[in-house]
């Protein structure tokens, strides 16, 4: 798994590539925490290059969403979610908790 972060004027873009499972999810959780610790609460997660995500990854997303939404200071949104991952997120009821966008441009434009 690879993570890169890019700062925009109104939000931060976190690009996640590869596979997120119990071995790699802590790295994703860490990247999200480091954003929120720096006062960044408007986050776009770009999933275009994501091949796989287990519930360990879902947990990291949920923890970040809780932190970001607190005091209405921001939110985590998902962009370019691959079909299989979207289906698993839906099954877990996670599509109710995250706005999703077809592409990064519209996700960034949301903020």
């Amino acid at each position, binding site marked *: 798994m690879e993570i890169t972060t890019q700062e925009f004027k109104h939000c931060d873009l976190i690009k996640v590539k590869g596979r997120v499972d*119990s*071995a790699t999810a802590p790295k994703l959780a860490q990247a999200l925490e480091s954003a929120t610790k720096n006062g960044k609460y408007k986050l776009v997660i770009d999933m275009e290059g994501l091949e*796989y995500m287990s*519930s360990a990854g879902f*947990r990291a997303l949920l*923890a970040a969403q*809780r932190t970001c*939404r607190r005091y209405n200071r921001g939110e985590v949104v998902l962009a370019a979610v691959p079909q*299989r991952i979207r289906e698993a997120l839906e099954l*877990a009821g996670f599509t109710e908790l995250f706005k999703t966008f077809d592409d990064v441009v519209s996700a960034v434009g949301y903020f």
Partner: protein
Amino acid sequence: MAEWLLNDLMQSARFAAQFEFLDEIRNFVGDIARRGGFSDKAVYNIQLATDEAASNIIEHAYKGVSNGVLELSCDVSNDAITIVLVDHGKPFDPSQIPAPDVKADLSKRKIGGLGLFLMRKLMDEVRYEAHPEQNRNVLTMIKYKE
């Protein structure tokens, strides 16, 4: 790290019970399911269910154990794949794990139990047997072809 035993009907492998081997575990079941004629979608879901099962074993059954072993076997028949995971760690009773409320608000959303929930949703059958006298726990998951 995996010892592979091959025959025509069934394939088995032993993995060190560590998260680092989840990739290999997913590849192992994915290859067999794909060769057994399952669709891409079914292969992904079989891999996800197996990952969740193995992750639970590593995290809970082998909690505090660094040299645990996970035995995995896959058997493809004409209409189904059967995946069996055996561990020698602490038994756990899945019926004691409450199903997560997947409709709950963000603030009330529980983190635990999601892996087991996904396994039950993605596979057609999930059975668990603990044999404490043999220090052996057996999780069996079956998915039928669509």
